């Protein structure tokens, strides 16, 4: 497709697939978590918030190392894999999705939490006086009001997953079509002196990152204007 050799095209396809599945899973997991972090009065919630944010600070090698152990035959990943007769979740697409969810989580939770917090109590109190149940108020009031935050979270989560390298390198095993994504393919091309191919993929990444950041800035501007 597009006249590209398959060892360039397959990693691109796989990366998009990985980022899309990771982003969808993250929205499902991160939205309730962000809601709880924004609304709860529990004293220990900031502890949870700190744990979720750890991947921002930790080097990917730390995440990769622990994931390799946790996904392996001695960890919970091995137990899950044994359900279908495998021994480990490392070297699998599922393993990459799990790793990407962990490492991209803070980039999704943070903007959604901020968006929920920015709504304040008042719209929800009004909804309650109109006899909306808390669940209904969440779906019909909080979620639409927080939608710019969700969009920001989704874009950042997608972009960060596309850019993930260290974790993938450590748990992937570089299998074409399953765990060989763009970032590791670039690394391979550079190592094996295929600089033209590396340049093509890397250049594409630069354009992609620029487009993501620019659209984020424009989106934020637009939201700010709409609110004013």
């Amino acid at each position, binding site marked *: 497709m597009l006249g590209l050799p398959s060892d360039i095209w397959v990693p691109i396809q796989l990366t998009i697939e990985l980022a899309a599945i990771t982003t969808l899973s993250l929205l499902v997991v991160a939205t309730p978590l962000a809601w709880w972090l924004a609304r709860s009065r529990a004293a220990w919630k900031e502890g949870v918030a700190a744990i979720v944010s750890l991947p921002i600070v930790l080097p990917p090698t730390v995440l990769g190392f622990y994931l*390799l*152990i946790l*996904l*392996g*035959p*001695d960890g919970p990943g091995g137990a899950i894999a044994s359900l279908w007769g*495998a*021994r*480990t979740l*490392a*070297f699998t697409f599922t393993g990459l999705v799990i790793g990407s969810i962990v490492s991209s989580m803070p980039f999704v939770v943070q903007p959604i939490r901020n968006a929920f917090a920015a709504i304040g109590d008042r719209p929800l109190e009004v909804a309650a006086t109109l006899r909306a149940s808390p669940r209904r108020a969440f779906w019909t009031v909080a979620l639409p009001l927080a939608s710019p935050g969700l969009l920001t979270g989704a874009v950042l989560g997608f972009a960060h997953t596309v850019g993930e390298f260290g974790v993938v*390198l*450590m748990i992937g*095993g*570089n*299998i074409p079509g399953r765990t060989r994504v763009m970032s590791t393919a670039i*690394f*391979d091309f*550079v*190592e*094996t*002196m295929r600089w033209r191919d590396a340049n093509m993929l890397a250049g594409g990444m630069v354009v992609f990152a620029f487009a993501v950041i620019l659209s984020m800035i424009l989106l934020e501007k637009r939201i700010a204007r709409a609110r004013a």
Partner: protein
Amino acid sequence: MKLTVLIAALGVLLASFAAPAGAGQTHVAVAANFTEPAKEIAALFNQKTGHEAVLTFGASGAFFTQITHGAPFEVFLSADSERPKAAVDGGFALADSLFTYAIGKLVLWSRVIDVTDGEAALKAGQFQKLSIANPVAAPYGTAAVEAMKALGVYDALQPKIVQGNSIAQAFQFVDTRNAEVGFVALSQLYGVTAGTRWEVPQTLYSPIRQDAVLLKTGADNEASKAFLDFLKGPEARAIIERFGYALN
């Protein structure tokens, strides 16, 4: 005020790291499989000459790319003979400094199944993942593929192959038992008693000649030249042999 104290403390700390006057320093790029012997050799080198060898470990392919882009290494201990030669051809290294410092041996290793008879184990294929080093970037990976092809099992095993970025990672996949079996370097199994192993017969793969070369950046560096001389000497050779390499 506090900041000045901190900076002063840092300065003292840095000064304590600096080498004693008169002794030189050399930066050596070391192929991952040679990590352990290189550490021993560097320690002995320091003891005997006072020079310090600062070692960096990694995949030979990555080192080559870095060297051609001006990485601050003065000596290159590759896992193969092609890259040091390419460094010479490209004008990054000195031709007369080139020599084979070790000949690597390939081993099949497992912590899950019995691979004492490796040929039978490979033909039976009773495992899900087989770990090798990246065959395009790492010579031990190339040798592993050659050996499997020579045994006629490559096509059958190919779907089970997972690649480590270097031989160190290939080892780590087997060590964490994420892969049941893997091709590693004999030197990596030095002091390792876990699992079972099969030394791959040298007839099944082309010899892994590991060459060393002095880079142009180290042409006038006494410590770099001394390190290469030391590597050729009897003390270093004894260490290299002890770790399971053959010598010229």
